[in-house]
């Protein structure tokens, strides 16, 4: 992939006010139009990285580049940055503050000082997009957790950012809700060409919905690359307090412990089926030779 970098960090070092080192010389490139997963155990610095990509957390040293330009931390620079880089927080209750869904979604747009008809149009498009149109006039505290998550997403999407930062988008959702939201984000990405950064623990969804992955530990990048190559670097994945997707783990055990010779690696059910089908075809051929 020769696409240019959308966001890039160089030796990024961030320290929280209490002295905790959140990011420790982090180097990462996020390419235009990809979905990249930020993986790491608790306290690995995923959320801190998202905050620094949005200009909330200022680096102690090193820098963040947006389209090869260092971030401008002046008030005007931050405003432009946050229009381009939107963040959806893990806990929707920390993000939704207005008294009704419609008002909350309109907040970011009003801050962009758009004319009212534009704001209304964009709010309606965003509500339609994430499927909360019928909740428009509801007070936020009457919504379910899943609905709140969607409204929080709509509030950011309405601002039409070119980069979407998602902090644990699937946490707290039921399995189908989690799949639905990831599929939605994948679709959105492929239609709009948006760049998406997903910080997550949900390792199973990474091979399904992400192009690349970045494994973090203690504020550093352990591994950065195509999701498919995570299998080869599984020692790094495990070092970060994570594990492989179940299917990948199964394949690994089959090869290492049970002596299978498989025609490739698999991380998803689809990939595993392909491998097993190939095996099946081979054993059929063997069978016909013998018979």
């Amino acid at each position, binding site marked *: 992939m020769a696409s240019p970098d959308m966001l890039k960090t160089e030796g990024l070092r961030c320290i929280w006010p209490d002295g905790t080192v959140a990011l420790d010389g982090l180097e990462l490139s996020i390419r235009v139009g990809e979905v990249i997963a930020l993986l790491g155990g608790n306290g690995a610095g995923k959320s801190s990285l998202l*905050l620094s990509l*949005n200009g*909330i957390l200022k680096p102690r040293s090193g820098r963040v580049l947006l389209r090869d330009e260092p971030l401008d931390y002046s*008030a005007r620079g931050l*405003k432009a940055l*946050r*229009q381009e880089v*939107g*963040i959806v*927080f893990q*806990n929707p*209750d*920390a*993000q*939704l*503050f*207005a*008294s*009704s869904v*419609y*008002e*909350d979604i*309109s*907040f*970011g*747009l*009003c*801050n*962009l000082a758009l004319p*009212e008809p534009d*704001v*209304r149009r964009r*709010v309606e498009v965003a509500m339609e997009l994430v499927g909360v149109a019928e909740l*428009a*006039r*509801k*007070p*936020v*505290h*009457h919504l379910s957790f899943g609905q709140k998550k969607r409204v929080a997403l709509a*509030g*950011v999407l309405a*601002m039409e950012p070119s980069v979407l930062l998602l902090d644990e988008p699937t946490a707290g959702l039921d399995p189908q809700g989690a799949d639905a939201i990831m599929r939605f984000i994948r679709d959105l990405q492929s239609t709009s060409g948006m760049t998406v950064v997903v910080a997550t623990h949900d390792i199973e969804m990474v091979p399904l919905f992400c192009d690349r992955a970045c494994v973090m530990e203690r504020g550093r990048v352990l591994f950065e690359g195509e999701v498919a190559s995570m299998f080869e670097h599984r020692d790094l994945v495990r070092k970060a307090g994570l594990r492989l997707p179940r299917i990948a783990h199964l394949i690994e055990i089959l090869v290492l412990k049970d002596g299978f010779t498989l025609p490739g690696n698999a991380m998803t059910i689809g990939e595993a089926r392909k491998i097993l089908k190939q095996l099946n075809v081979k054993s059929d051929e063997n069978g016909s030779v013998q018979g």
Partner: protein
Amino acid sequence: MRTLDHYAASSRLRDVAPGYKLLYALPPIAMVLWVDSALFALLVFGLMSGPVVMKGGVRLADYLRWLLLPAAFLLTATAAVAFDISVHPEPFLFSIPLGSAFIGVTSAGFARAIHLAFKALASVSCLYFIAFTTPVADLGRSMASLGIPALLIEMTLLVYRFVFLLFETALEMATAQRSRLGYAGTAASFRSLASLASNLFLFSARRAEEVYVAMECRGYDGSIRVLAPSPRAQRLSFAGIALVEGTLFCVAIATHFGRLF
């Protein structure tokens, strides 16, 4: 039980412009307090409760249950008015001797208590009319058109949004404490309540910080600007409301000067 807020959000009268509802419900409070008549109070009570139940879609049983809430206060307060103390037992309808004096209920005291109860109930029904039909957010927006400072309204609406969150959190913490026998004795109860309160404070501080950061991410610059859902508010005929209020006022005058009721 659902909160008042739920009723307001799902009321069929929700879309009536808040100003009209305030105009309908607030003047009668003053009239009820001015006119000292149980029948007039009943009239106002009917005018307020009728629309809430019949037009707004609140179940009568639910509405009556909500009325029980102030009724408890009402009973204790009016009882104090009804009872009197005297050295002679004659003026009392019934009395109990207490040393050399008597405590009991006179017919005048009883009438006063009944009047008071009706007046209070009618006033409550006026406020219930607003509470059952108008969400706080709508009320806030109509306050803006009255020239109340934006800062005050923003704060009201933020408090309104987060008081539910605080309440929910407090409830969860209390349940967690109860499940570990936190309220099993007086001493334990006090300890648990104290730690609940201090934890809630820390929670609020942290949540405030989070919300501030999240708002900053969406371009917050010191003033909260949002757009309300497109106004679908029905504008009832102003003349109609004026007529109802006018008639009620005439009845109030007639009652006050003893020509009616």
